[in-house]
Structures are given as C-alpha cells and as structure tokens.
C-alpha cells in the first residue's frame, strides 16, 4: 500500500487543553479511516489540522513525502474537505452553488454543467437544481454539499460528520459511495458517531481516551 499522508509526533491543543499528543498516523491509499472519540475530544480540530486549515500543531505533516506547506497546491488539488458548514449559499440554487465549487476543482463550461447535473442526480436533487437553497430542507441542503464529492477527481476525502441531517436511505447511499470510492483507489478520513456498515476494513483512530 502507498502511504499518502503521514504525521509524525503530531500534537495539537486548543484553549490550553491538549487534544492530540504524539500522534503517528500513516494514511494509506485505498483505506477508510474513522476518527472516534466523545464530543469535544478534538475530532474536528484534528481534521482541520490534517487538511491544512489550522496551523496550531507541532510535529510534522507530510503529503506524498513532501511537507504540506511545500506541496500545498498539489495537496489541495487532490483533497476534498466537507466540514460542518458545507459552503452552500441559501440565496443561490444548487446548480449555481456547484458552478463555483466546480470552478475551484478546475471544471468549467459544458464539462462542468454535465458533471454538476450528474452529481445532483446522484444525490437525489434532480428536479430541484434551479430552486433556491433556502426553499430546500436541511437534509436537501446537506445533499447539495455532498454533491461536491462527485466534482473533479479528488484522491482523498476528509469528511466531518457527513451523515448529519441525512435520511436512512441517504446514509446507505453515502456508505455505498464511500465504498465505491475506496475501491476505485480513493482514501477517506471521516468522523461519525454512526456505526458504518461497509464491507471494506475501517481503520479506527481513537481520540480522548488517555
């Protein structure tokens, strides 16, 4: 297996509380990693450090053998981060929202339109593509954010509580998408309190049990 993201002796703290200390991770391609821990144990903070949003850590963080600062642009081209706030504008329609996200991933013109329509169909928003997002339910807005998973060719998904506000059918679908993505050579790091029912092995990273 090829190691893509590595941490050596990673420590991070927030408001004088140590959340993670001496963490040595070796994220390998084609695997699923589930970060576990009680509320407030630093799951989101760890994901923000891993994707390069937060610099409040000590230790080293490398992407394909290069430090994340050096390989920033390549790392971010291959990364897809889905946080608590999914970056969906209520005043815009799902399609308008995704046009911008597609542009960040390097898609434009007709190829972007096709990719966006395919992604919206996949997340079950076909027929809603032109209604404003404030008219959609919380779960549907969340699905607009999830549609980003199918734009561009990212190699690593970092998902922070992706199952929030999603119905049972949606949860099963998302699990299938994760499975298919991993089978295709992708890598997933996620946090969730939900028990994953995935046939692929799930590596667990447990926080806050000292």
């Amino acid at each position, binding site marked *: 297996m090829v190691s893509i993201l590595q941490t050596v002796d990673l420590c991070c703290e927030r408001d004088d509380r140590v959340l993670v200390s001496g963490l040595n991770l070796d994220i390998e391609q084609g695997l699923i990693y589930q970060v576990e821990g009680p509320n407030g144990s630093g799951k989101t903070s760890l994901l923000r450090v891993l994707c390069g949003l937060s610099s409040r850590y000590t230790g080293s963080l490398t992407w394909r053998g290069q430090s994340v600062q050096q390989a920033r642009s390549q790392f971010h081209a291959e990364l897809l981060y889905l946080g608590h*706030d999914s970056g969906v504008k209520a005043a815009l329609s799902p399609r308008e929202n995704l046009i911008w996200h597609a542009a960040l991933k390097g898609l434009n013109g007709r190829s972007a339109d096709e990719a966006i329509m395919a992604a919206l169909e996949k997340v079950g928003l076909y027929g809603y593509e032109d209604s404003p997002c404030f008219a959609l339910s919380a779960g549907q807005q969340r699905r607009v954010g999830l549609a980003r998973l199918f734009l561009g060719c990212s190699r690593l998904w970092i998902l922070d509580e992706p199952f929030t506000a999603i119905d049972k059918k949606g949860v099963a679908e998302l699990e299938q998408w994760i499975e298919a993505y991993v089978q295709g050579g992708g890598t997933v790091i996620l946090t969730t309190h939900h028990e994953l029912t995935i046939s692929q092995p799930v590596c667990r990273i447990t926080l806050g049990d000292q």
Partner: protein
Amino acid sequence: MSKPQSEQVTVSVFLVFTAILRRDLLLAFRRRSDFFNPLAFFLIVCSLFPLGVGPNPQQLALLAPGILWVVALLACLLSSDTLFRNDYDDGSLALMLLSPVSLYVQVLAKTLAHWLLTGFPLTLLSPLLGLLLQLPSEGMLALMMAMAVGTASLSFIGAIGAGLTVGLRKGGLLLSLIILPLYIPVLIFGVGTVKAAVEGFNYMGPLAVLGAFLALAITLAPLAIAAGVRISIDN
C-alpha cells in the same frame, strides 16, 4: 488502482477569478437590500447637509468636496464588514483556502466584486449629489474620476480589515479603528483633486497620486488580505 498516483491537477486561475466574481455579483443581485444600504446611506447623509449647514450656495460649494468624500468613506466602511462575513459563516471561506489556486487571486476577485457593488455605484451617483451640494460644474469630471480611483483603493483597504476581523464575533468597532486611519491619505488626495478642479488648477497631480495608491493597493493589499483571512480561519 489503475489510475496514475499523482496526476498533476491544473486549475485555471482566470476560471476561479471569474467564478468568484460572478457568484458574488449574483448573490448581491439576489440580496438587493445589502447592495442598496451604502448607496441609501450616501444619498441620505448628503441630502441632510444642506438642511443642517443652510442652503447658502457659496458655503455649500466650499464644503461639498469634503462632505462628499467623508460620506463616501463612511459608506465604504459600512459595507466592508460584510465582505467576508457571509463566506465565513457558511464555510465557503475555508473552502477557498483549500483551493489549489492561491488565495491572492480569490480575494482580488472578491474585492473587485465589492468595488463594483459599492464604489462604482457611488461614483455614478456622485455628480447628482455634487449638484445637490452646489458643487461647481468644473469639479464634476474630477469628482467622478477621483471617486472611481479612490473608492477602489478604499475597497482594498477595507478588505484588509474585514479579513482580519471576520473571525471575531463583534469586530465592527475594531474594523473601523484599523481601517479609518488607512483611509486618510485617500481622503486628502481625493478632496485635493476636486478642490484643484473647482479652483481652476490642473488636478492631474493629486489624481495621479490616487492612481499610485490604487496601483499599490492592487498589488500589495491582496497579500495582506489573504494573510488576514488565513489567521481568521486558523483558530
């Protein structure tokens, strides 16, 4: 795992720039009240001055350049707080940070959109208010040119403060304290341009200084804005 491991993904800088510009203009079009706020402020405050100072044309004409510029300054200040606020709240700003395209280009696009939505309409509105404040007609062209160039600098300066304070819940007062002193050179040369034109002198000198400010702002301010945004997200 048949795909190549590290394919070089290239994202066009121009594509991201236009996508952000179009999205911000579309958002402003959908939320028109945000867009009209600074314009209404400019219009109302300027129309109050003749009532407060008295309708004496000579007196008003003397004060007009200063009034117009101070009110334009405050209108820009009022609108700069919202520049990054919505993007911060809904997580779009974090996604911009995670884009392979440098943040410099993205904040440049956002600031340009901000100018198109505040400074540009203020420029178009300024001759009307100049007329209201009895500004002599020789000053009109100079006023518009100085406004166009000056408000663009104001947008960039405002964006520095907005980027720095967006992570704070109550950043409004701090924002004014940070950026008002930086607005002062633009105010001085903006008023100087209009006064020179009214008095019949060549106004190209102060206008050129405003242009130099803008050139400096376009090249250097995005660095400061991007750094400020990074700090705000990083907590």
